[in-house]
């Protein structure tokens, strides 16, 4: 403006005029330059309004993300915990939103209820076949009705879809589930997972154009076709808005016997005794959802239970749950061949690998002079320290310790080759014969966080190659895949444990190595008095039992009368026998769901292994599981919960954005995934600022000049 105006003014004496002319020219050019630099700023500002939808992230563009908070209401009765899990989704944006949230549940959880609470309204969910639920969800979503759907992706991994969250409002999803309480070595344990360790997806990426990169960070692969559905984005706690990803818990424990202490390895608990029940909550109020919450309680001294029976009537059928703890105390003196397998994949980086190494070193300490051992590490490749297992001599142990200390975590999690190496090391089978002619028991200790997507393929491998070896799993990290730990150990005829923190490590490992060295009860049979009910007893085949572990079975159609006969064979060949009177059965809750869940697991096992000639065909399994799910209101791989609001709330004209809610990176885990680096400089900003300033001062200078 200014320079152009000045051109029309009368002229001054020649030298000054020429200088002024030059100055005016310069400022004109500066103005043009400034315009060039300012233009991008406008471009950026106008793009912010809503043109960023071509973002690959299905997320909310640059709007603030959906907030999620969780509340657990846990009621423990005897050996079953009944949990009401409430997830609240808050939409802080100005647009209607659909939230997709992948979350973990305990591996043995049976989800039996869903309620959606939108403001004052309470909408009860119903169980549907998965495909039907999906269609009804899509329909309600497009009609603008509030709708929630919960699917099972893995036995311990679920997805909530929640559509039509109004701008600025929250919707709560209440899930009811029950889970068995783990009882071992005189201690009850309940684990509530809150996040998941990012899982490795083996196999080749199936490139499917636009659909790849949709829900999660991983694309479907040949080995894990649903990789994108089980890999939510993991973010650091500082990346989520304040107040998001926080959980609260209220827990009441009615163990049925006096409880002496309640503890947790990772959280500070506040407990209140009230008669026979204990109320437990975290002392801090809310806690970040970046690690599993583990609560342990022990019966008062001298009150350690040795057996328990619960019964329930449901739809005219009687359900019975029996639990028994055989007192196995004798130590076995047999020489062993121990193979340690340690996961050194990228997901173990940080605190996990330190714990894993410490566990392995602790394991090396338990070796006796007659034992053989080997150490195998795996990430993208598998490497073993010795070609064949070597005697546990001082020299070899020192070498192994050095090797273990030097391990570092990076790369993928190709677990299959590690299993092959550990299980197949000597074809001759479990009781290995070495040149010295000593018979040895083969045991494999598998130390991992289980963060893989192809669990069932691995279980199949274990089952096929196991021979007489026993596989023991040690779960590492703040959020290990406990489904993998438990099932791998079950297929491997061993047992599992999990380490939550270094302070917890010593005790858990002492327990595990104690079990490995002690007597094992095999060939266990539980004889129910009612022969027709015997058929429905679940689990049908009971695995082997280690010291301190309980024996439990749930049965349908058995009246609470008569005696239950339990027998097994001890390592020395002698028979162990015990009987339990069913008349003293206490009344329990949700036993039918425990039974249904066990029944479903048994059917799906046949599906996983697919080699049992007696197993029904695949399609048949799906129908039977679906029927069980619908009958008992349970989420299964084939049934989902759906809650639909009857009246539409979103006007047709309003658009809806989908937002994948991230999960927190488990505590202590070094992010295996790289952050995108900072790739812009301050140069354009400085250039624009410099030019603007120059322009300003030139204008003032010219004005003053003119004023002279």
């Amino acid at each position: 403006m200014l320079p152009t105006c000045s051109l029309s003014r009368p002229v001054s004496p020649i030298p000054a005029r020429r200088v002024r002319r030059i100055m005016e020219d310069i400022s004109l050019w500066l103005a043009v330059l400034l315009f060039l630099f300012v233009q991008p700023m406008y471009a950026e500002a106008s793009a912010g309004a809503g043109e960023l939808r071509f973002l690959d992230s299905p997320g909310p563009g640059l709007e603030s993300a959906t907030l999620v908070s969780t509340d657990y209401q846990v009621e423990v009765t005897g050996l079953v915990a009944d949990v009401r899990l409430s997830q609240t989704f808050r939409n802080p944006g100005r647009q209607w939103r659909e939230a997709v949230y992948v979350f973990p549940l305990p591996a043995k959880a049976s989800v039996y209820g869903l309620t959606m609470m939108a403001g004052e309204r309470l909408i009860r969910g119903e169980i549907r076949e998965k495909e039907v639920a999906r269609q009804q969800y899509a329909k309600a979503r497009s009609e603008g009705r509030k709708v929630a759907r919960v699917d099972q992706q893995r036995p311990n991994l679920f997805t909530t879809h929640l559509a039509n969250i109004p701008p600025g409002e929250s919707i709560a999803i209440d899930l009811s589930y029950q889970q068995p309480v783990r009882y071992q070595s005189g201690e009850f344990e309940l684990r509530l997972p809150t996040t998941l360790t990012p899982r490795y997806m083996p196999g080749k990426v199936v490139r499917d154009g636009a659909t790849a990169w949709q829900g999660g960070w991983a694309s479907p692969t040949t080995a894990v076709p649903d990789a994108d559905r089980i890999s939510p984005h993991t973010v650091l706690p500082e990346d989520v808005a304040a107040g998001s990803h926080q959980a609260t818990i209220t827990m009441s424990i009615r163990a049925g016997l006096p409880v002496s202490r309640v503890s947790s390895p990772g959280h500070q608990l506040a407990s209140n005794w009230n008669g026979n029940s204990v109320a437990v909550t975290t002392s801090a109020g809310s806690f970040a959802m970046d690690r599993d919450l583990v609560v342990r309680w022990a019966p008062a001294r001298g009150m350690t239970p040795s057996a328990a029976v619960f019964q329930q009537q449901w739809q005219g059928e009687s359900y019975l749950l029996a639990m028994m703890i055989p007192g196995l105390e004798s130590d076995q003196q047999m020489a062993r061949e121990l193979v340690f397998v340690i996961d050194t994949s990228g997901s173990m980086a940080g605190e996990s690998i330190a714990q894993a190494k410490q566990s392995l070193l602790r394991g090396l300490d338990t070796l006796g002079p007659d034992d053989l051992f080997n150490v195998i590490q795996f990430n993208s490749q598998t490497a073993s320290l010795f070609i064949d297992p070597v005697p546990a001599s001082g020299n070899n142990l020192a070498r192994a310790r050095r090797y273990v200390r030097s391990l570092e975590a990076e790369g993928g999690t190709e677990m299959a080759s590690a299993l092959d190496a550990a299980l197949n090391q000597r074809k001759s089978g479990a009781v290995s014969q070495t040149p010295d002619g000593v018979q040895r028991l083969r045991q494999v200790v598998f130390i991992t966080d289980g963060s893989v997507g192809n669990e069932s393929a691995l279980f199949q491998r274990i089952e096929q190659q196991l021979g007489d070896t026993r596989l023991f799993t040690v779960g590492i990290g703040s959020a290990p895949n406990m489904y993998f730990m438990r099932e791998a150990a079950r297929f491997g005829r061993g047992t599992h444990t999990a380490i939550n923190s270094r302070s917890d490590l010593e005790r858990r490992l002492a327990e595990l190595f104690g079990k490995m060295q002690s007597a094992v009860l095999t060939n266990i049979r539980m004889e129910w008095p009612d022969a027709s009910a015997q058929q429905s007893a679940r689990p049908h085949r009971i695995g082997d039992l280690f010291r301190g572990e309980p024996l439990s079975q749930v049965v349908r159609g058995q009246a609470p009368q008569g005696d239950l006969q339990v027998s097994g064979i001890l390592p020395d060949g002698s028979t162990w026998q015990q009987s339990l009177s069913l008349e003293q059965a206490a009344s329990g809750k949700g036993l039918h769901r425990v039974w249904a869940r066990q029944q479903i697991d048994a059917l799906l096992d046949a599906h996983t292994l697919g080699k049992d000639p007696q197993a029904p065909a695949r399609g048949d399994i799906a129908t039977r599981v679906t029927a069980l799910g619908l009958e008992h209101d349970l989420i299964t791989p084939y049934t989902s919960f759906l809650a639909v609001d009857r009246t539409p709330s979103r006007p047709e004209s309003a658009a809806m954005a989908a937002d994948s809610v991230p999960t927190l990176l488990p505590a202590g885990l070094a992010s295996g995934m790289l952050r995108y680096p900072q790739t812009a400089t301050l140069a354009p900003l400085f250039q624009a600022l410099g030019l603007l300033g120059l322009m300003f001062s030139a204008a003032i200078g010219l004005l003053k000049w003119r004023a002279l």
Partner: protein
Amino acid sequence: MKYLCMLTTVLSFAILAFGLWIPFKALVAQELLELAWAESQARQMQVRPWPWADTWPVARLVLQPDEDGDGSRQSLIVLDGAHGESLAFGPGQVVGGDQNAGPTVIAGHRDTHFRSLEHLETGATLKLQSRGGQWRSFRISSTRVVDSRYHRINESMLPRDSLLLVTCYPFNSIEANGPLRYVVYAEAIGSELAAVVES
């Protein structure tokens, strides 16, 4: 008033000079890096371009290879690491090793070296030269914009023979720490052949 005017002028010049210094430095550094690259290729070792540098050239990247010969139109020397220091002088290699195994991720500044990423189109070829002198060609299979607040580069999920170029987005923004990144995804040409040889 006069002093204020003077001060504004001087300050503005300083800021402008600083703003121009960054691209200038980026331009000049590439020339110096050419020398270091030539030396490191000749001696097959890490050569620091200047004694106090905390990075060294690891590869040469050609964004628009000229098919007629080696008269490549835009050749960049890639440095090790993607910290602020190295990115000021050249694109930085975040992931990738000398053995040509595994994926390679290269990040560069939007305002300087990787400005031309904007004009790269799907199907175009890129060339990367390792210190050993071998050239590898890549074809751009896709470009995408990601939000760095929600996305991470998951190294273990990338195919072995892939190349990722990362820079900030939008290209004409003046904001220096925006969350968006522009990612160019390229796959090696002839990777099937390599696979056959390996097996």
